[in-house]
C-alpha cells in the first residue's frame, strides 16, 4: 500500500518491542501458569505485528502471524488447553516470526523449512480445536463480486431506521448524502411514525425514507452505504430495471447476513476490570531515531573539547582578565557535564531487553541437555547504553551456554554430590562505581583446572613445566586457540571461544573476570562502561607526550621515596607501599618516549587497577589534571595497539592516547631482561 513507506522504521522498531513482550510472557505458557491477561498480551503483540505487516504488504510474515494468532485466540478462549508443548511451539513460532520480520526489513527472504513445519504444527493445533471460527472468518473475507460498469439503473430503496439508530451515532442524513454521490437521488420522507412533540424522545429515530436512485453503481456499492446501519433498520433495495430484478434479490437484510454468525456476543465483561498489576507502562515517550541521538552525543563531545580549549586559552590571559573567564568556564563545564549525562540517559536502556531473551535459551538448552536449571534474573532495570546492550547479547548467550553445558552437572551427579537436583544460574546487573557490572554465576562443578591445564599444555599455550596458580589456570580459558570445535559439544561450541567473548567485551570498553571454586561453581563478572563516548580521565605527562588514564582505574598516585623502590629479579622494579609490593611499569619505556623522567622518585607513580588484573604502578613525569575526554576509536581510525584503548583530542588540539590499563602489561617491553615466556598470557601477573 503506497504512502506508508516512511513509517516502516517505526514499525520495525515496534515489532522488536512487541516481540520482547511476547518473549517476556511466553514462558508462562510453557509453564502452564499463564492467565487470561498473559495470553491476551501475547495475542495483542502478535496481532499488532500482523496488523502493521499487512499494511506494508509483508504477506508471508502476515500469513504466519495469522496462524500464530489463531492458536493464541484458541488458547485465550479456552478451546485449547495450556500445555508445555504448546508453549515451546509458540516460542519457536515466535522465533520464526522474528526471522520473518528481519527478512521483511532487510529484503532477504529467510528459509522456509522451519516455517513450513511450524505452520503445519499450528494448523494441526487449530484442527484439534474448534474450526468454526476459521471457517467463519474466511467466509467473511470472501471478496465482493466485482461489479461490471453498466448503464445507469434505477433502484427503489426503502430505508426505515429502527428507533435505536442514533445509539450508534449513525446519521441518516450522511447516508442519504453518500447515496447522492452515487447518482441521481430522489428522496421522499415518511413522517408517519413521528409522534407528538411531548412524546418525542430525541434519542430515537422516527423518520423513514423512500428513495429512488439512478446510478451506474452496483447493488453491492449501494448496500455498502448502508453497511453500518443494516442491523438497525428495515432496508429494501429493488432494482427497477429487468436485468437486476431477475437476480434473486434478498431484500431487507442482504448486508446484514454478513454479520449473522457473530450474533451471540455480549459474553465478555469490559476489560476495564483488568488487574492493574500488569507492568504495562511505557508512559509518556517519544520515539527518536538513534542517529539523531548520536549526533547529539557527538556534538556534546565536540563541545567538551571546545570548552577544554577555552580553559587552556584562559590560562594564557593575565589573571585580572583570565580569572573571570575561568570562573565562567567552570560553570559552563558543570552545565556541560549535566548536558552530557542527560544526553547519555537518552541512549540508556534497561538491560531487560537482553536479559529477557535468556530464559528461553536456558529452558531449551536444559531440556536438550537433560539438565534441570533455574535461571534467576536480577537488576533487569539497570540502564546501560543502547550500543552496549545490543552487543551484549552474544557474549551473554555464550556465557550462559557455557554455564549450562560445562558448569551445571546432570541432576544425578548433583544429587550424588549433595546438591539440589536443580542447578541455579544467576544473571544479574548492577551499577557499581560508574560502571555496570553483569554477573553470570552458576552453582555447578566449577572450572576443571586439571582439564584446562592439560588442554592448554596440549595446545602448547603454556610451557609444560609452568607452575600456575589456580587463578592463572582459570584465565587460560580466555586464551585464543584454547577452545576449538572438537573440544566442545554442539551446545556451547560454535567455533567461538571465550577469547572472542573477552574481545567482544573489551571492544565495549569492558573487562571480564572469572572466579571459580571446584564443586561450588563459577562466576563471570563483566564490567562495562555506562557509555562508550565520554570518559573521565587523568592527563599525565610522559616526556613531551600526554596520556590519559581512565579515572576509574586509578587507585592513588604518589611520589615515592627512594627506599620504597626495590628491584626484584624477574619482576623488574616494585614499589613497596603499606606492606604490599606493586610492580612498576615505566610508561616512557613501554611506549618508547624519549626525554622522560626515568627515576620514579623524580616523577609520579600512578597506581592503577582493573578488572581481572593486579595493581600496577605507572611511572609518569607529572599529573596534568583531571578532565573529560571524548573517546575516538583508535581501532577504527588506525588499528589496535596493545595497552591503548583509544585516542582523544586535547584542548590545544593535540592528540593524546587513552591507556587501556588492563592490557598495558601485555608485552613486557619495559622489562627486556625478563626471559620471554613460551606464550603470553594476557592479564596475568
Amino acid at each position, binding site marked *: *500500500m503506497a*504512502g*506508508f513507506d516512511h*513509517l516502516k522504521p*517505526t*514499525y520495525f522498531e*515496534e515489532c522488536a518491542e512487541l516481540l520482547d513482550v511476547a518473549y517476556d510472557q511466553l514462558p508462562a505458557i510453557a509453564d502452564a501458569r499463564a492467565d487470561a491477561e498473559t495470553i*491476551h*498480551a501475547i*495475542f*495483542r503483540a502478535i*496481532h*499488532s505485528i*500482523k*496488523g*502493521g*505487516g*499487512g*499494511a506494508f504488504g509483508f504477506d508471508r510474515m502476515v500469513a504466519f502471524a*495469522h496462524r500464530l*494468532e*489463531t492458536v493464541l*485466540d484458541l488458547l485465550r478462549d479456552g478451546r485449547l488447553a495450556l500445555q508445555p508443548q504448546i508453549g515451546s511451539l509458540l516460542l519457536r513460532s515466535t522465533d520464526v516470526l522474528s526471522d520473518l520480520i528481519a527478512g521483511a526489513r532487510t529484503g532477504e527472504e529467510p528459509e522456509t523449512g522451519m516455517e513450513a513445519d511450524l505452520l503445519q504444527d499450528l494448523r494441526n493445533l487449530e484442527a484439534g480445536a474448534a474450526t468454526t*471460527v476459521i471457517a*467463519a*472468518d474466511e467466509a*467473511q*473475507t470472501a471478496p465482493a463480486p466485482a461489479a461490471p460498469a453498466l448503464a445507469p439503473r434505477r433502484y427503489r430503496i426503502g430505508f426505515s431506521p429502527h428507533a435505536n439508530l*442514533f*445509539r*450508534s*451515532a*449513525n*446519521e441518516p*442524513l*450522511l*447516508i442519504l*448524502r*453518500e447515496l447522492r454521490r452515487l447518482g441521481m437521488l430522489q428522496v421522499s420522507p415518511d413522517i408517519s411514525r413521528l409522534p407528538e412533540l411531548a412524546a418525542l424522545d430525541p434519542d430515537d429515530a422516527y423518520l423513514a425514507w423512500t428513495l429512488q436512485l439512478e446510478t451506474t453503481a452496483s447493488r453491492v456499492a449501494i448496500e455498502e*452505504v448502508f*453497511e*453500518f446501519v443494516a*442491523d438497525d433498520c428495515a432496508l429494501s433495495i429493488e432494482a427497477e430495471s429487468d436485468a437486476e430484478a431477475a437476480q434473486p434479490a434478498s431484500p431487507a437484510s442482504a448486508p446484514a447476513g454478513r*454479520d449473522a*454468525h*457473530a*450474533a451471540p*456476543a*455480549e459474553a*465478555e465483561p*469490559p*476489560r*476495564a476490570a*483488568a488487574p492493574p498489576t*500488569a507492568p*504495562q507502562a511505557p508512559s509518556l515517550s517519544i*520515539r527518536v531515531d538513534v542517529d539523531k541521538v548520536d549526533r547529539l552525543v557527538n556534538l556534546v563531545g565536540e563541545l567538551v573539547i571546545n570548552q577544554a580549549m577555552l580553559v587552556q586559552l584562559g590560562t594564557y590571559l593575565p589573571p585580572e582578565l583570565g580569572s573571570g573567564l575561568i570562573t565562567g568556564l567552570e560553570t559552563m563545564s558543570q552545565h556541560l557535564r549535566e548536558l552530557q549525562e542527560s544526553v547519555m540517559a537518552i541512549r540508556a536502556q534497561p538491560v531487560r531487553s537482553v536479559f529477557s531473551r535468556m530464559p528461553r535459551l536456558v529452558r531449551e538448552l536444559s531440556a536438550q541437555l537433560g539438565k534441570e536449571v533455574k535461571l534467576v534474573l536480577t537488576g533487569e532495570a539497570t540502564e546501560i547504553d543502547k550500543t552496549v546492550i545490543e552487543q551484549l547479547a552474544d557474549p551473554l548467550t555464550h556465557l550462559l551456554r557455557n554455564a549450562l553445558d560445562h558448569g551445571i552437572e546432570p541432576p544425578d551427579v548433583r544429587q550424588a554430590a549433595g546438591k539440589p537436583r536443580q542447578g541455579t544460574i544467576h544473571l544479574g546487573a548492577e551499577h557499581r562505581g560508574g560502571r555496570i557490572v553483569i554477573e553470570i554465576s552458576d552453582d555447578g562443578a566449577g572450572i576443571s583446572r586439571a582439564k584446562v591445564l592439560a588442554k592448554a599444555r596440549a595446545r602448547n599455550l603454556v610451557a609444560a613445566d609452568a607452575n600456575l596458580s589456580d587463578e592463572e589456570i582459570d584465565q587460560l580459558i580466555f586464551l585464543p586457540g584454547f577452545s576449538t570445535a572438537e573440544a566442545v559439544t554442539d551446545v556451547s561450541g560454535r567455533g567461538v571461544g571465550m577469547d572472542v567473548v573477552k574481545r567482544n567485551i573489551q571492544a565495549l570498553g569492558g573487562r571480564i573476570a572469572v572466579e571459580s571454586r571446584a564443586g561450588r561453581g563459577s562466576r563471570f563478572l563483566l564490567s562495562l562502561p555506562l557509555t562508550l563516548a565520554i570518559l573521565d580521565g587523568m592527563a599525565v605527562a610522559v616526556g613531551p607526550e600526554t596520556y590519559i588514564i581512565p579515572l576509574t582505574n586509578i587507585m592513588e598516585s604518589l611520589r615515592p621515596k627512594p627506599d620504597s623502590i626495590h628491584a626484584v629479579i624477574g619482576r623488574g622494579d616494585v614499589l613497596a607501599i603499606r606492606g604490599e609490593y606493586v610492580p612498576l611499569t615505566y610508561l616512557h619505556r613501554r611506549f618508547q618516549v624519549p626525554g622522560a623522567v626515568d627515576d620514579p622518585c623524580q616523577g609520579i607513580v600512578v597506581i592503577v587497577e582493573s578488572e581481572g588484573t593486579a595493581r600496577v604502578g605507572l611511572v609518569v613525569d607529572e599529573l596534568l589534571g583531571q578532565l573529560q575526554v571524548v573517546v575516538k576509536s583508535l581501532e577504527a581510525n588506525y588499528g589496535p595497539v596493545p595497552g591503548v584503548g583509544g585516542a582523544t583530542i586535547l584542548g590545544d588540539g593535540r592528540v593524546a592516547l587513552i591507556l587501556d590499563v588492563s592490557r598495558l602489561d601485555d608485552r613486557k617491553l619495559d622489562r627486556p631482561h625478563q626471559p620471554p615466556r613460551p606464550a603470553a598470557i594476557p592479564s596475568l601477573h
Partner: protein
Amino acid sequence: MAQHVMTVDDSKTMRDMVTFTLKRAGFQVSEAEDGQKALTALRTAKVDLIITDLNMPVLDGVGLIRAVRQDAKHRAVPILMLTTESDPAKKAEGRSAGATGWLVKPFDPEKLVDLVRRVCG
C-alpha cells in the same frame, strides 16, 4: 475548522498510519494508546470522531465504546472500530456496544477517508 478525529490504538504504527492518512485528507488528529487514555483525553477535548482498535491493554475498544456511549457529552460521537477479519465476535460486541461502523485492518487509506466522511460528514 478541521474536524477532529481521535485515533486509539496501542500500536504506534497503526496510529501513525491513521494519523498520516487523515491529516493528509485535512483532518485534525489526536492519538491515544488505549481506551483509558482516550477517555482521559476526552474529558477536555472535543472530538468529531473516534477511531479505535479493539484489542488494547488497560481498556479495550469495546470498553471504550461503552464508556463513550454512556457519557452525555460524547454519546453522539461516531466511533469506527478498526478490526481484523479474525475477530468477528469482537466486532459484533463492539456493534452492540454502540460502534457506528468498522474498518478492517490493514486498511486502504482511501477507504478510511471515505468512511470517515461517511460517518462524520
